[in-house]
């Protein structure tokens, strides 16, 4: 591993962010946090993360609005997105990202790490 994998967490729930941040940092990943879609988009453009973990239901800019802007950036569009959602939120909605996966909430820390590592492996990291 040449450098630390960089993970961006976009979620308005501070407690959940705290847990996910702690979980990922225990694996020595670099974790950046944004609390809404707008901030997330700015940080995604500025920090160029390897993976984005995104909550679908958020204030200011929700996951779908985020996706619309996100997909316009050719570099970002290729960055995997792990979309956090509860079952009832995601039903019947088409998947808005090129490389992505729905993660069903609630998510156990070990499952989060497993998913992130799976995607990092695909990226060759």
């Amino acid at each position: 591993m040449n450098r630390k994998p960089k993970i961006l967490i976009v979620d308005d729930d501070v407690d959940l962010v705290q847990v996910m941040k702690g979980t990922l940092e225990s694996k020595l990943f670099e974790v950046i946090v944004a609390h809404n879609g707008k901030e997330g988009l700015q940080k995604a453009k500025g920090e160029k993360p390897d993976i984005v973990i995104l909550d679908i239901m958020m204030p200011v800019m929700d996951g779908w609005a985020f996706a619309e802007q996100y997909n316009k950036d050719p570099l970002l569009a290729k960055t995997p997105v792990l979309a956090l959602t509860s079952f009832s939120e995601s039903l019947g909605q088409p998947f808005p990202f090129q490389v992505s996966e729905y993660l069903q909430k609630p998510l156990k820390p070990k499952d989060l790490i497993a998913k992130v590592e799976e995607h990092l492996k695909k990226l060759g990291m």
Partner: protein
Amino acid sequence: MFDNVRVPEIKDEAAPVHAKSVTAGEVSASQYTPEERALILRVGVYVRMRWLVILGIVAAALIASLVFDISFSILPVSIICGAMVLYNLIMFRWTNSLKAEPTGIVLKKAERAANVQVLTDLVIFTILLHYTGGIENPFIFFYLAHTIAAGIVLPQTRAYQLATIAVSMITLLVFLEYAGVVSHVNLEGFVRPDRYENLGRVLAVLVALATLIYGSTYVTTAVLGELRRRQRDMVALKDKLLEKRAKELEQISAEVVKLEDERRSFARFLGVVAHDLQSPLVATQSVMSYILEGYTGEITYGQKDLLERAVRRIDGLLTLITDLLDIPRIETGQVSREMREISFNEVIKKSLEGLDNVAQQKGVTLKLELPQSSPLVYGASRRLQQVMTNLVSNAINYTNEGTVSVKVIDNENDARVEISDTGIGIKPEDMPRMFNDFFRGSNVTSKGTGLGLSISKRIVEAHGGEIWAESPDPETHKGSRFTFTIPKKGAVASKEK
């Protein structure tokens, strides 16, 4: 003169538009307005009727001279008949040439053809009458045929004008004959010549005929006027009814829009409720899992046990919230909005991902049997997966050893799924309430909301399918068997509310 011919007042506004691009000779009847079509048809009928009239005159002349031995001058009658044949041939050509005229122009030309014919007919008939005995010829009453026909097809004033022309012609004929300007032709062997010398009788016939002509014109125009008035009233009534219908329809569509708005805001409300109820639970559970997995340091066995109990309770509560909020969504038509054309085998395979692990951990064998070519159904993929997950995880839950087998059958009209287990089965007294909300089997001890089967039933029925349970499984005589059907694409319309 009779340019104002009355015809049905239906206007086909689209028709004249085509006229520009059509050259003479190519015009077909379909390019005319209904008004024009009716007029052309009438002019054609005149010509056909006239052939019959000519035949009638020839027959009457033959019968009169051969059978009744009535003497009259054959030559003028023959000349008149010949002239009529010639005149009708010209009219026949004229009428046919009308069909090549473009719409708009054709109306004026056809009206002129109709007026010319009516007038010519009256003149010819008067001349014919002169050579066949004048006012003494009973066929003089044939003037009536013309005036009655005119009363039917022409407006009132035009009909009276025609009646006046007819009466004037007869009067002129009688006057000219009586005054000796034109010699009277006597029908020898039929009428005694002294009859004609009786002025009182001649005038009486004349007055009677004139009265009849005006009387018939009055009656026909009055009756037809009344008929037309009633027709107008009926059309007005129809328009009024249609207007009322349109208004009602407008109200209904407004109502539909309102209901759809309400449904949407209700769905939004449910979305917010779901999110706000679930978020704190999700956060709580994540925090506890974080501690459980040792990220905050070692925990004791007792702490671990208690935390695990708490996580399980929150799991249950999350499922309950999801299920509870799902019911109104399904009942307000959510499922049909998620429907697409899907491959049924794919849905079944996807729904079993993860469940084989669960089965394995319990020591239960999970078998899957799919048809070679997948049935195509019109369905909501994730909803059908939800049904499968419910039924299969139930089967695994209530089976302690043995097999859970899933079998997909491709029927003519539907795809059928059978989920059989060798588990504890269902008590007969529980059967009727199996699919009720919050129903829990009396022999069941494990966790669950009691909503899984009732939601599954709603989803299957929203697809127009059926779901039922049998215990024991009629094939293995063990456990239970759940079956549901989903209509194949195009087989049955959705029965959703």
